[in-house]
């Protein structure tokens, strides 16, 4: 009986659309920015599939069609980057140096902390893209042999941690310059960090939005270099 309902393309599509709508509704109803419709949807779908013993493959019959749109979603990330290009040209040295050092800190710290905490190779590969924007993180994770589900959840957690800790960190370390604040938020915490940066100010928001794309490109290029050089 349940099989007849779930072994159907519409099942996965409807479940995904319905839960995302539910998550958006909750966020608007309670007016809380930390309510994350994506995380809520993932959590509820995983619990539902587990409880009803519905295999992931059956969900993906329909949800795979939504997944296939990650390609065009990634391509249009060029647009915000293009819109902020003047900012990049104006502060190129500070922005490029800041983002390259942030990306290096991210890659090195994941590999070192992975050793410290005894994580296996596949987990380390899944966590390497944790600071970059989700569509590029998924592509990178699949490219280097990570598990995309772990990558997506780690990226959302990273965004929530970065956005909630930013004010304290900036105060403690006397980071006062709007460009430095925006860059730190965008490089470490992608789009979720950028919504925090927009609250801080217009320059912070613009720099953060620019940093999302630049950090993702630099991460992909550095990981490719690491692989070609055989360091990883």
């Amino acid at each position, binding site marked *: 009986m349940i099989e007849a309902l779930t072994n159907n393309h519409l099942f996965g599509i409807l479940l*995904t659309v319905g839960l*995302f709508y539910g998550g958006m509704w909750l966020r608007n109803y309670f007016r809380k920015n930390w309510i994350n419709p*994506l995380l809520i949807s*993932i959590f509820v*779908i995983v619990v539902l599939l587990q409880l009803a013993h519905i295999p*992931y493959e059956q*969900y993906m019959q329909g*949800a*795979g069609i939504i997944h296939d*749109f*990650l*390609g*065009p*979603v*990634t*391509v*249009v*990330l*060029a*647009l915000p980057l*293009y819109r902020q290009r003047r900012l990049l040209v104006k502060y190129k040295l*500070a*922005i490029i140096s*800041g983002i390259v*050092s*942030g*990306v290096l*800190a991210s890659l090195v*710290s*994941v590999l070192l*902390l992975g050793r410290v*905490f005894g*994580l296996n190779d596949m*987990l380390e590969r899944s*966590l390497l893209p944790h*600071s970059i924007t*989700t*569509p*590029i993180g*998924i592509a990178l994770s*699949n490219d280097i042999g990570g598990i*995309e*589900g*772990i990558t*997506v959840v780690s990226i959302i957690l*990273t965004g929530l*941690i*970065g956005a909630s800790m930013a004010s304290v960190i900036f105060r403690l370390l006397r*980071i*006062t*310059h709007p460009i*430095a*604040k925006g*860059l*730190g938020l965008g490089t470490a915490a992608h*789009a979720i960090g950028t919504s925090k940066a927009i609250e801080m100010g217009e320059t912070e928001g613009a720099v953060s939005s620019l940093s999302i794309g630049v950090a*993702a*490109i630099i991460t*992909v290029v550095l990981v490719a270099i690491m*692989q070609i050089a055989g360091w990883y």
Partner: protein
Amino acid sequence: MRIFRQLAIILSINFAGELLSKGLSLPLPGSIVGMLILLILLITGVVKEAHIAETANFFLEKMPFFFIPAGVSVMVAYQLIDGHLAGVIGTIVLSTLLVMVVSALVTQFIIKKKNND
């Protein structure tokens, strides 16, 4: 009709990126090659913002929706995380804070140094 033309442009660039990535065995995923192609086309003025605006804005605004199926695949990876949850969360928290501190401090240092010169 405009939406379909915009979608056709975006999908063609995506497709070109996939072909280039596979054909030349580039070490970059096809979707990212597509993003770089679109960036170049925008900078050179071959593609204008208006050629893709509404469709691109739709994808940009509703982006998280498209990540749900990838996120749900965490359920088939559960055995991998089992027993390592504290280590995974510890790695994410410490690495995130470090990235923010390093990138913001380096940027502020360079901007202030430049202003003093």
